[in-house]
């Protein structure tokens, strides 16, 4: 089993969608929210995903396809 910490950033039109619930239903993943900030027009959630590595990668791809931005928790790692 693998674990990955990620940050989801939701655009305004997806704030009311139960994306994280669907992620747990459609994929064999445990989602564990640690910190979040959701306002009317924007939201981000920092969470841990637990499951097989391939399943985590498939799940993240699906979340991205829904229009959610997915980043590593430390922010951008590639520096100039």
């Amino acid at each position, binding site marked *: 089993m693998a674990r990955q910490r990620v940050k989801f950033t939701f655009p305004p039109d997806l704030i009311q969608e139960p994306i994280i619930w669907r992620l747990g239903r459609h994929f064999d993943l445990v989602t564990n929210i640690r910190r979040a900030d959701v306002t009317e027009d924007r939201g981000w959630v920092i969470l841990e995903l637990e499951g097989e590595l391939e399943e985590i990668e498939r799940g993240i791809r699906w979340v991205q396809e829904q229009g959610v931005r997915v980043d590593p928790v*430390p922010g951008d790692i590639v520096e*100039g």
Partner: protein
Amino acid sequence: MSFAKNLRCRECGRLYPLDPIYVCEFCFGPLEVMYDYEGLRRHLTRERIEQGPLTIWRYADLLPAQGEPVDIGAGFTPLLEARNLGRALGLRRLYLKNDCVNPTWSFKDRVVSVAATKSREFGFDTLACASTGNLANSVAAHAARAGLRALVFVPADLEVGKMLGSAVYGPVLVAVRGSYDDVNRLCSELAEKYRWAFVNINVRPYYAEGSKTLGYEVCEQLGWRVPDHCIVPAASGSLFTKIYKGIKELAWLGLVEWRQPRMSVAQALGCSPIIEAWERNSFDIRPQRPRTIAKSLAIGNPADGYYALKVLAETGGYGVAVSDEEVVEGMKLLAETEGIFAETAGGVVVAALRRLVQQGRIDPDETVVAFITGAGLKTAEAVQDALNEPVLVEPSIASFEEAMAQRSGALPTARG
């Protein structure tokens, strides 16, 4: 000796031992090094610092590493009074902190020197990073010095020339097929899987502390005084927050008299998530897709953006985003007035400085320090098209004098 005491979560305040960890297990907030300031206050004096080496390691007591430093000479770079540039901009007490002259020609040597030292202390055998430029150069160089293996991840479409400054030190260069975001994701997964020192991931709390030395040096070089106003370029925002932390630490320790400096941030318009949030009066960073010639500042989702915004608010600083054209003008102005060829980030800072003066946001008599963080040959292509053509002449005095008269309207003064 280091007075580092523990790591503390910047969000929830939980404490952790000084291990190679970077996020709080509870809230996934970033960790920061804390020190025994009482012990430091008893131990540290100006004289002790002044007797130290002419590198960042003169401040070893204030850094989080214990072992023999991995030192290729980073730091204690010149603080130059910039009379010509000051005159051009309308500032009477302008100083330039010239970090172009570090061993691999950028301020990254400060952070990587600390990261490499700490990594060796932790017993890592590999120093890793993901970078398109300055950071890669510095990691490769310090790993060579430390006898560590260097692993440098770059996007596969990076120009060969950009890899040269790293490749020469003999690292393993890994070119990743895919987008910038793909490289980001892969590196965060690799950092979880392998026991490497990834300088800006699992060693980041220690690495970032190296930037404090810019704050220490500026105060020391001003005769142990705090400047009125600092103009700092921002990518992740870490450098900016740590310079301020360094200045505040010196005041806590009684090594300088506290005066609130104004801390201002400069970014390139094509990648300015910190400035964009500042202009909205918000602490919520909206990630951007970078589109600027200032590649060393091109971080669309800055790790320390929120903390940079807090420093801006605390110090009454300003955020300035400048266009790529202004960046090139800034680079040229700096070179033509002060003889310093900086990379694009330096152009961003000079252009931001000019904007702040035009907006009346800097008093002409303030002591202003502009941080020039990397050398120009790294981004020579940025100014290539903006330079004067050479004066082409035949090998005869007549041809030379004719060409010079055409160019300047006057003949050069002859001897005798």
